[in-house]
């Protein structure tokens, strides 16, 4: 039972996953980076990126997804995102106070506008995506261990 489960689902599901996981990941990056000009933002983009990895894991079994993003790496990336946010916030001290928007505002309605806001979005997206993927991995690993015990 366990060996069958590790190989993943049927051929149809695998093919559809191979075709759709890339566009889902790309859509997550699009929503993440356009958060300040259109609806969306860091949280949603991070969760969509996590969902792309979760789809890979559900279709191909846990081995194949761990090859792309191991569990320790997920924790590490999550901490990296949090530290990036804090470092960006602390850089505001160069201009005066914490969380200051210290880069130039740029021209409105363009992608590179709004100063530091896209960088905040990227930091939060990395953090949320990696954190939720770590939670999901922990939940799945517990199940498999318990089935071994029985």
């Amino acid at each position, binding site marked *: 039972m366990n060996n069958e489960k590790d190989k993943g689902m049927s051929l149809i599901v695998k093919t559809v996953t191979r075709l759709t996981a890339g566009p889902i990941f790309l859509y997550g990056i699009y929503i993440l980076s356009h*958060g300040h000009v259109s609806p969306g*933002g860091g949280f949603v983009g991070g969760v969509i990126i996590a969902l792309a990895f979760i789809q890979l894991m559900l279709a191909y079994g846990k081995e194949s997804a761990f090859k792309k993003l191991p569990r320790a790496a997920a924790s590490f990336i999550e901490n990296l995102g949090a530290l990036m946010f804090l470092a960006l916030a602390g850089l505001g001290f160069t201009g005066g106070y914490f969380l200051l*928007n210290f880069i130039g505002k740029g021209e409105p309605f363009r992608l590179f506008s709004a100063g530091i806001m896209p960088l905040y979005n990227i930091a939060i997206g990395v953090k949320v995506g990696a954190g939720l993927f770590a*939670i999901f991995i922990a*939940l799945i690993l517990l199940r498999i261990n318990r089935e071994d015990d029985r």
Partner: protein
Amino acid sequence: MLDLYILLIFIIVAAAIAVETKDLLSSVIALGATGLGLSLTFLVLKAPDVAITQLIVEILSLIILIRATMKEDLPFSTSGRWLVNTVITVCFIFVFIFTAVKCFKELPQFGYPTIKTSSAYLKEGLKDTGATNLVSAVILDFRAYDTLGEAAVLFTAVIGVLTILRRKGRKNEETGLDNE
């Protein structure tokens, strides 16, 4: 206005089904219907950011809940003091509704909110931050401390889940199985 009422009644019916169904998997699926209706309601109420977030979060929490409930359906025991418990709960809820309805007079009328803080954000948002999406401007510039605290909460949640679900008895495995 009518579409809003239809969506809200759909949400309430789906929530009632989710509460009352005996099968756990059906209950989780009804919860998914509730979240989808809520997402559509946010879209009707002109809140596209919240609608996208609600939809995606709903999908993820549905996957997690289904992982938790697979193959573990139990018989639903309603023995014991069934009548007394239900009567007490319903009485409590009626008292709650009665007091809450009295408070509704103090709220602003639906459709005519009292905007004081937001009017400043509306006037000076584009000039101060340069961001077109004003919700993003609020959570990342005007009120960035909220986002910082929320990132801390999420970090604590990830650490908590990893700690709770850690393979237990790591020390016992090293010293041998005698401690069991």
